């Protein structure tokens, strides 16, 4: 293999995306938004009066940001990391003639991409569920005009605010071959985020930062967005640096 050009990051990214084929991670990406939509459908049909579009769009985002997102990120990062831990591929991958940070950055981008796709699917499935409920029981058909632009902005903010959460969970999942540290951290973080929803300190808790985008105080939401987004980028950079230099001994 003489005089090869420098390895391209796009190649590592494409390979990482290909690994998702027929994987449990991809199944999770479809199932979690579907569960929210199923809940939305049954929640609406049990009602006696119609709800406005504004509320019908807000409920799924709240469920997503409050509970489903931190739990899904925990499971998703563990599954993606386990693709290599489970098959004991790290030695092979790390011995390849390409910069090691490519491997980790490709994984991080794939996870972020899947989370973005799940965010979109949550809305799409929920809108479908809302329409289906209205067709099934016309008395609860949603009223008013949907503000899809505003909803998309809120969804984008929740997504960007989740980067610190993704970085923390992915780092732990990649660092430890066992599922336990990543799952324990994710479940523990989500537990505290749920039981202490209105805690002031929640704004710095990675598992609670996304739901802070729905705070009534815009300043709090903005600060949470900066912490989640910029903190996430910094954590990703630190993760790439540390994991790229690390010697895997076992």
């Amino acid at each position, binding site marked *: *293999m003489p005089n*090869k*050009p420098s*390895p*391209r990051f796009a*190649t*590592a990214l*494409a*390979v990482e995306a*290909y*690994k998702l*084929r*027929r*994987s449990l991670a991809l199944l999770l990406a479809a199932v979690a938004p579907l569960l929210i939509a199923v809940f939305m459908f049954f929640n609406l049909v049990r009602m006696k009066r119609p709800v406005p579009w504004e509320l019908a769009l807000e409920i799924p985002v709240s469920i997503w940001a409050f509970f489903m997102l931190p739990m899904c990120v925990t499971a998703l990062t563990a599954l993606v990391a386990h*693709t290599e831990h489970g*098959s*004991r*591929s*790290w*030695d*092979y*991958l*790390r*011995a*390849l*003639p*390409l*910069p090691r940070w490519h491997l980790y950055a490709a994984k991080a981008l794939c996870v972020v991409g899947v989370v973005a796709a799940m965010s979109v699917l949550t809305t799409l499935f929920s809108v479908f569920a809302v329409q289906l409920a209205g067709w099934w029981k016309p008395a609860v058909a949603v009223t008013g005009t949907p503000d899809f632009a505003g909803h998309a902005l809120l969804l984008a903010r929740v997504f960007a605010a989740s980067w610190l959460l993704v970085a923390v969970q992915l780092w732990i999942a990649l660092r430890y071959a066992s599922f336990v540290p990543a799952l324990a951290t994710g479940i523990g973080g989500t537990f505290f985020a749920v039981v202490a929803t209105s805690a002031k300190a929640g704004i710095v808790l990675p598992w609670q930062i996304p739901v802070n985008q729905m705070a009534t105080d815009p300043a709090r939401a903005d600060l949470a967005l900066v912490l989640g987004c910029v903190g996430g980028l910094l954590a990703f950079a630190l993760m790439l640096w540390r994991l790229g230099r690390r*010697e*895997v*001994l076992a």
Partner: protein
Amino acid sequence: MPAAIETLDLTRRFGERTAVDRVSMTVPERSIYGFLGRNGAGKTTTIKLLLGLLKPDAGFARIAGIDVAADRIGAARKIGALLEAQGFYAHLTGRENLALACRLLDLPGTEVDRVLEVAEMSAHGRRRVADYSLGMRQRLGLARAMLGAPPVLVLDEPTNGLDPEGIADMRRFLRELPTRTGATVLLSSHLLDEIERTATHIGILSDGRLVLEGALAELKAGLAGEVAIGTDAPERAAALAREHGFDVSHHDDELIARFAPQEDVRNAAAALNRVLCTAGVRVHALAPRQRSLETLYRQSAPAALA
């Protein structure tokens, strides 16, 4: 012959323990180098140093002339590895696994067909790796190591976990590798028989140190001749033989006489027989022992057999 792999004073410590201790090894081009040592002798650590997975505390390693520490990526382009851990994605097919490696190595897709054919795996490429037997996974690992036809192949315990038929099959395959691919093969194992049947050169590692290295045939030719003495009175026979200047020792309940390398075994055995019979010791067998890798191993790494 120029060296495909060369290390000088390669050292790696884990805390207080020195896993690889000033190892200076030379693997000639197009050779099959049997890298021997018991479990824990430092073989896998040495291989990880060659692959750039670990950093040495001292010394250096060169692959095809490229310093691994200075240019890991350049050295990695010259080497294909089958590591003990197999590293395949079980939910993908063998062909898909190879295609992923191919992309990461920036190789054309036709490489997949080539290596599948060399590894005699063409018929199984479209099956999911989860459905493969261990032998098939090992072959797939070999196929992956051969992607891009690297000049050096490092195979860590390639027969581990295989059944006897699979081992024989793998041995035949490994013997043919340099001819088929033109590559130099570093074959790590703790099985003497496997190395003896496959390797052209050997390096023996004991407690992190390289205690013997060279062409297997030359090393065996330089071995002292040995005969196993069958007698009813081994203690007396040993004492008598030693009195007459013979080098005699006990190994696994056997009394072994070792002669000087240049000495004719037949003449020496006759002289020994005469000494024992004259003294009235009943000798019922004097069996010449083959000059084997086991003898070489026993002499150079005695601790390993303890």
